[in-house]
Structure formats: structure tokens, C-alpha cells
């Protein structure tokens, strides 16, 4: 197989698939690498298995996903599933080096343009007991459901805030799952603050209508919903047994065997940060996003980013942003000229505009509770290295100026996840303790390999 391409796309979600489909359709030699065994990303994970579904809360999503995957598979783009990227190099002599592995052998691919479409991850909010077996994210439970059909079991509590929480609850109930209750942490004040964005959001009311319908469905099923929950703790000796939560100053405790947490999604910026692209702090969404232009170009030559990884916009807008990035790749590679790119982009931008007005409303409504960023001293922030918030504060007290120095003091962020999980919450703690802006604090430096790689895999690498 050839290892030199014009356009290399990382990630087979809506943005990556759409970009590859557009570029390959214009005759650009395109390869798409993805970690998963099947295309779809997380949102349309294993979606081809749902091709025959005709009903259910997610049938419209799945149909959209099946269409995207079908177009991608027919596009002529080369598809390398089960492939992890572990290093991205700055372009040299006009081509970017992308180091990959399939778990057995490392390899290096060359491309004149690279699109990073690595999507989103669930925001890590450290709470007491979040490392206990039995505690996982809502997204994790949804992946189990999408790949195995397994619904939630008796003893399951869901806690947090955000659209995915309600979608998953409705899906789980539809699949015959049990939910003992939902602890909704959306602060009361968010509703009032989101109201001023409700009118623009009504320009495409399908999102609002659907959100309300999902909530109504969960309520109709008789699932108890506790509003305005201010704090959550997981309790148990080696395994989750109880969930404690605070509502209007009162602590309560319930029995639980599974606790599913969700605090919204944030861009996965590991890859874009590894190439030293510029990032900015988004204060309402409380996350770092790569700085990109209207075509997805990052501050680094040869590299673009699109989809939720370049700022949370949702699946439909991500697909359009992917199309724009695909057109821009074709332009940059000389396959089409500027006029042709703009002509093809015009209807895509019209579509994109339909899916963006809801974002300001959702961002404001689900902006996380400020208290979540000040975990108690005994709460583990870095799961890999078991570093508590208290030790991070101690390191700051001893003079650690920022995340990287704090990491050297404590090992926080030095474990196998390389700070993907603890990066944001640790930066939030530093910002609070030192009275700094998040933009000034930043995140841990990212160094290759982006994923652990064995010497055996590495030995297969060509000279």
C-alpha cells in the first residue's frame, strides 16, 4: 500500500468522514486513519449495525450516520481502521509525517495536508470516589449500549448535566434499562442566563423540541429527577455502594451499584496541542479550543482541524465543517481553484448556519457549576498517578508556577493517559489558587508518543 498521500484525515466521525468524502470526490488522494474498528466516530459508533432500524429515539441520528458512512465508504478514500496516531511532525519539504500503529506494527505515512478530526471527550470533573469500580461516564455506558445492546441495570444512578445525559437516559429506558434516578447538577441560574439565547435558538427549533421531548420521555417513565444538585460523592469499599449528593445544602445518600457521570463534552486537543497549534480558552464552555480560520486551518502550516475537536458544535455542524475542510484541502493542493472552492462551499455554509444558533443557548444552559472546579483536598484529580487536589495545591504553595512545573513536583499528568483526563481540572485548580486566567495557565505540554507504543511495534518502523 502506498504511504504517501495528498490528504490525510485523522478520525472517522462526522467531520473526518465528510472531509475525506469531499476531497476524494474531487480526485485528491486521501487516506483516513481511525482508532475504532468501524467508521462513525463516537456519535455514530457501530452505526452500520443500526442500518435496518426504523424506530426509536435515535432513529433519525442513525439514518444520518448510515448515510455519512455509506458516502465515505463509496468515496474512494483509503480507510485504515484500528489505527492509532502516536506522533505528528511539522511539515518538511512540503509533507507532514504521521506516525501510526495498528497495535502490532508501527508505520509512517506522509501527506501534504493533514486534518485533525479527533472529536470530543467528556469533561473530567473529579469527585470523591470517582475511581471506584461502578463509576463511569454516561458516554461510556452509551458506548456499551451502542456496541453490545446492553442497557443499564438496576441500581444505576445518572448524575450531571448536558444534552447527552438526557439522550442516553431515554435510549437506556427504551432498551429496557433501569434508572433509579437522575441527579441534575445544572445550576438554577443557568436557565435564566440561557434565556436570552433562546430566541436565536428557535431559528432551528428541532434541537429544542427534541431536547424537551427526551426530558419528557424520561419523566413519563417515572424516573425520579433531583434538580439543582450541588455536589456528588461516590462511596464504597473497593466498589461503588452508595451515592451521596447535596441539594440546597442538605446531604442525602442512596444505594447504588452504578453511577454514570456526565458534565458535557470538551474538544480532545491532545493532537492539536502536540503540533504546537495556537489554542484559546473558551470561558463559557470552559475548555481550550484550537484557533482555526473559517476553513479549519490551524496556526501550523499543513494542519487543519474540524468537528468537535475544533470547538463543540455537534454532529451535524461537524459534518459541514468537515466538508469545508475537505474543499480547502483540495484548494491548497491545487486540485480546485479558489472560485470553485467558494462556489462549492456556499451551500455548505448555509446548512452550517442552520445548526449553529442552538450552540450559544446550550453552552450557557450547560455551563458547568463553578464549585466543580474546586475539589476538596482529598479528591484524586490525576487518576493514573493517584494525585490529590491537596497535593496539587501543596505544589503550588511550594512555588510551582504552572501545570508543567506542578507535574514535575507531583507526577500529576505523568501516567498513561498523559494528562488527557487531569489536564483541565488541574489547570482550573492552578488558576484558582494563583488567581490567574486560564489562558495564562494553559495545559500540560504534550509530547510524543501520543499513545503508548511498544519497542516491538517500533522495531517495525522503516528507517
Amino acid at each position, binding site marked *: 500500500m502506498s504511504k504517501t498521500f495528498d490528504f490525510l484525515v485523522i478520525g472517522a466521525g462526522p467531520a473526518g468522514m465528510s472531509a475525506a468524502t469531499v476531497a476524494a470526490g474531487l480526485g485528491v488522494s486521501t487516506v483516513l486513519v481511525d482508532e475504532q*474498528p468501524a467508521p462513525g466516530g463516537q456519535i455514530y459508533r457501530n452505526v452500520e449495525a443500526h442500518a435496518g432500524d426504523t424506530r426509536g429515539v435515535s432513529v433519525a441520528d442513525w439514518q444520518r450516520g448510515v448515510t455519512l458512512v455509506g458516502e465515505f465508504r463509496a468515496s474512494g478514500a483509503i480507510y485504515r481502521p484500528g489505527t492509532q496516531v502516536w506522533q505528528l511532525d511539522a511539515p518538511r519539504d512540503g509533507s507532514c509525517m504521521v506516525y501510526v500503529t495498528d497495535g502490532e506494527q508501527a508505520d509512517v505515512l506522509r501527506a501534504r495536508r493533514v486534518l485533525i478530526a479527533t472529536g470530543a471527550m467528556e469533561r473530567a470533573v473529579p469527585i470523591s470516589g470517582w*475511581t471506584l469500580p461502578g*463509576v463511569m461516564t454516561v458516554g*461510556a455506558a452509551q458506548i456499551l449500549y451502542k*456496541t453490545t445492546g446492553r442497557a443499564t441495570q438496576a441500581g444505576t444512578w445518572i448524575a450531571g448535566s448536558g444534552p447527552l445525559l438526557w439522550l442516553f437516559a431515554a435510549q437506556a429506558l427504551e432498551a429496557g434499562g433501569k434508572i433509579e434516578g437522575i441527579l441534575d447538577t445544572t445550576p438554577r441560574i443557568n436557565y435564566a442566563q440561557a434565556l436570552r439565547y433562546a430566541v436565536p435558538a428557535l431559528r432551528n427549533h428541532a434541537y429544542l423540541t427534541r431536547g424537551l421531548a427526551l426530558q419528557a420521555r424520561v419523566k413519563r417513565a417515572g424516573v425520579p429527577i433531583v434538580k439543582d444538585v450541588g455536589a456528588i460523592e461516590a462511596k464504597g469499599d473497593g466498589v461503588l455502594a452508595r451515592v451521596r449528593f447535596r441539594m440546597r445544602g442538605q446531604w442525602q445518600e442512596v444505594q447504588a451499584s452504578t453511577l454514570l457521570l456526565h458534565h458535557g463534552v470538551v474538544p480532545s486537543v491532545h493532537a492539536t496541542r502536540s503540533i504546537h497549534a495556537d489554542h484559546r480558552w473558551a470561558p463559557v464552555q470552559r475548555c481550550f479550543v484550537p484557533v482555526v480560520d473559517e476553513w479549519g486551518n490551524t496556526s501550523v502550516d499543513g494542519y487543519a482541524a474540524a468537528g468537535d475537536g475544533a470547538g463543540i458544535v455537534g454532529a451535524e455542524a461537524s459534518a459541514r465543517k468537515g466538508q469545508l475542510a475537505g474543499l480547502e484541502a483540495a484548494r491548497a493542493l491545487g486540485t480546485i481553484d479558489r472560485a470553485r472552492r467558494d462556489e462549492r462551499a456556499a451551500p455548505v455554509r448555509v446548512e452550517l448556519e442552520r445548526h449553529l444558533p442552538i450552540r450559544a443557548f446550550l453552552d450557557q444552559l450547560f455551563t458547568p457549576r463553578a464549585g466543580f472546579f474546586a475539589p476538596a483536598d482529598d479528591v484524586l484529580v490525576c487518576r493514573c498517578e493517584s494525585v490529590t487536589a491537596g497535593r496539587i495545591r501543596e505544589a503550588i504553595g511550594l512555588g510551582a508556577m504552572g501545570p508543567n512545573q506542578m507535574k514535575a513536583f507531583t507526577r500529576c499528568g505523568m501516567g498513561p493517559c498523559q494528562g488527557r*483526563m487531569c489536564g483541565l481540572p488541574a489547570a482550573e485548580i492552578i488558576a484558582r489558587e494563583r488567581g490567574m486566567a486560564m489562558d495564562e495557565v494553559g495545559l500540560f505540554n504534550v509530547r510524543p508518543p501520543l499513545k503508548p507504543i511498544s519497542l516491538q511495534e517500533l522495531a517495525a518502523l522503516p528507517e
Partner: protein
Amino acid sequence: MTSETVTVYVDGDPVDVAANASAAAAALQAGLGYTRTCPITDEKRAPYCMMGICFECLMVIDGMPSRQACMVKVRPGMRIDRQLGPRKLQ
């Protein structure tokens, strides 16, 4: 949904799982509870994100330690074992 299943061995016990499942999903379905112990504190840990971010699901798969079990699709006869403490050097 597909109803195709494969048989894998979770801590030695056979379990039938969906052919699309990951090794981590198989371990959870088998009721394994914890899938590793933390190399620092020896606490019990289990898969958390299921999408390759958190590295909490490191397990021994077909004898190979420190595999991200949520990123490995099951194969017939796959051996999926807990990883206790740090990975052992071979």
C-alpha cells in the same frame, strides 16, 4: 442490532459477548467488577471512559500486558485478564 456473538475467556471463564464488543465491555459483562489494580495505591479500578482517553482499562489480553481493553475488539477465544499492579516486564 446484530445478534452475532463470540466466546472469550474473562479471567479464565468463558463468556459469550456481542461480536462488536470491546475486551473491556466483555470484562464488564462478565461481572469482573475491577479490571486492574492501581500500580501506585493498589486500589481496584475499572473502565471509566470506554473510548481510549482515560487508560483506566489497562488489562492483559492474550498474554500482552497494558492493552487498552476498550480499544481492542473481541476475537473468538480471546483471553482477557486483570492486570494487577504495574505491568510485569517479560
